[in-house]
């Protein structure tokens, strides 16, 4: 560092540029739980990142699961599978989709397009739902067929009262559907519009039905990282809606949730939970993504602040009243894990340690070095709230050198046998994790 003392101002700037690129993330375990360690926010010339190259899985390769469990590929060769949704009869719906694509706004958008393509995030989505039928429950489907095609960037699905609700990126569409059916040919009817707009930055619309089936909760992501596309187009974004299932009337249920990528209802309490992806580009350890219970009318900070009252200096004009209102989330998942899937466990179907808690699919992101996420974890619960350190369930999506990535987990679900089903949108596979029988 002797050299830097004699650097001219220009030299220091180059030094700052290089230093920015090598700002390494710390130990993610310091950011799990209700009080994550939050370092000071930094602004960079080039934000730290690390982009693994997507390579997919070779035949026979799988993610790693803990001892006592086995993993099978239920389906391969899919088109960007995002969500898995088991039906009561055992059939599993697989939503294959990617974003509708956006036009570049700034020079930066061309660069991020290249980054996305390298990481396998730009592959064409199927815009369809595939049905997997595994009638004998051995994890090997006897049937794989397209249930419904030509959807518009679908993501969330919910089956209530012989109707399949599909959250396309711009609307909830309802199809008459009885489990057992293997094809939907009638056109869907629109239940409610969803914000999609000319800009549709976070395109996924996550969805879950209320316990009584009368409401659908829909997660809508923000239209930017941190309002850089203008505050006016954030109207109705970064929010969770409550949609009446029969009339389609909708209201904002919670706001300030930057990207509520998935929702789940806690068994027993009926409480709505969400996994939310937080903002980027203020450091490798900011801001932790989170798992939280969602309060009716609650405001969770975006864009004004994060993790309660930590103001974001990039937002102008600021709103101190909103900052003061911001609710601290229940549980930090550490930064840039990109949690995209969440499902509650149903007793000891996989292992006694997974009796009470939630599985979270961490897609992983490139906004951090070293990479974080790229795994499915189990978050234990106590007193109906997440509590304690998470347990890795599916790992080794990344190659050991972290330069290449085989797959990236998205949606997670439990099938009727209690096995964990995971969508993998880079491996283009659906994985099933079950308790191993006789060491198999």
């Amino acid at each position, binding site marked *: 560092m002797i050299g830097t003392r004699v650097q001219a101002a*220009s030299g220091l*700037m180059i030094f700052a*540029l290089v230093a920015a690129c090598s700002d390494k993330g710390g130990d993610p375990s310091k950011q799990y739980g209700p009080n994550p360690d939050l370092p000071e926010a930094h*602004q*960079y*010339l*080039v934000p730290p990142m690390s982009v693994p190259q997507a390579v997919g899985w070779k035949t026979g390769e799988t993610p790693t699961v803990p001892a006592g469990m086995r993993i099978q590929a239920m389906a391969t060769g899919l088109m960007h599978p995002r969500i898995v949704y088991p039906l009561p009869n055992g059939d599993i719906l697989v939503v294959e989709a990617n974003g509708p694509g956006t036009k570049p*706004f*700034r*020079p*930066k958008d061309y660069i991020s397009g290249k980054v996305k393509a390298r990481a396998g995030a730009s592959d064409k989505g199927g815009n369809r739902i595939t049905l997997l039928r595994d009638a004998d429950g051995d994890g090997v489907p006897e049937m794989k067929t397209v249930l419904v095609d030509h959807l518009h960037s679908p993501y969330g699905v919910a089956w209530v009262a012989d109707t399949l609700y599909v959250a396309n990126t711009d609307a909830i569409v309802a199809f008459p559907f009885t489990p057992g059916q293997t094809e939907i040919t009638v056109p869907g009817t629109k239940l409610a519009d969803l914000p999609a707009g000319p800009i549709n930055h976070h395109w996924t619309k996550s969805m879950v039905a209320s316990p009584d089936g009368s409401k659908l909760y829909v997660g809508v992501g923000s239209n*930017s*990282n*941190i*309002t*850089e*596309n*203008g*505050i006016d187009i954030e109207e109705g974004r970064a929010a969770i809606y409550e949609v009446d299932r029969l009339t389609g009337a909708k209201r904002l249920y919670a706001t300030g949730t930057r990207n509520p990528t998935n929702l789940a209802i806690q068994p027993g309490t009926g409480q709505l939970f969400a996994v939310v992806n937080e903002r980027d*580009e203020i450091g490798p350890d900011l801001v932790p993504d989170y798992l939280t219970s969602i309060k009716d009318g609650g405001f969770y900070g975006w864009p004004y602040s994060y993790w309660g009252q930590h103001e974001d*200096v*990039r*937002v*102008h*004009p600021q709103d101190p009243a909103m900052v003061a209102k911001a609710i601290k989330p229940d549980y930090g998942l550490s930064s840039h894990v990109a949690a995209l899937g969440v499902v509650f466990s149903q007793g000891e179907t996989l292992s006694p340690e997974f009796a009470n808690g939630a599985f979270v699919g961490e897609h992983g992101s490139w906004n951090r070095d070293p990479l974080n996420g790229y795994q499915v974890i189990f978050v234990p619960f106590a007193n109906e709230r997440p509590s304690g350190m998470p347990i890795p369930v599916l790992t080794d999506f990344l190659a050991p050198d972290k330069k290449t990535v085989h797959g990236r987990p998205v949606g997670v679900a439990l099938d009727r046998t209690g096995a964990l089903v995971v969508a993998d949108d880079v491996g283009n596979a659906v994985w099933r994790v079950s308790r191993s029988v006789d060491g198999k």
Partner: protein
Amino acid sequence: MARPIGRSRTHALLHPFFVGLGGALLMAALFTDYMYTSNSLSQWANFSVWLITGGLVLALVATIFLVIDVALGRAGPIRWLDFGLIGVAAFLSLVNVFVHTRDAWTSVVPTGITLSTIVTILLLAAGLRGWCVTAIKSVGRGESQ
């Protein structure tokens, strides 16, 4: 050897046009930065980053034409003051374009608009001096014809 009448003209340098064009874009970014600070409308910040990007592309083009000017023997000796003003402005603009890739308010305030202001002052000086990095060499006086 006497200069024939009618050949006493000089060949115009090629690079000043591109320096001036790029300089105009970089200076315009100060205006759009100012607009963004006054109304927080993100489109002004988008204008800024495109203007600076365009200015840098033209800086590259200008550099190529400077090399051509030298290669064609049109350029006289380097005018170091102008070279310095323009060179520093280009370097600061390179830093500035990275600052402007940040998201929202801090892409402009405070660092971005500060750099845009410094760049504009440097370029005003260079522009009033004629956007020339080198002296103009007159032809026909020597061995070139």
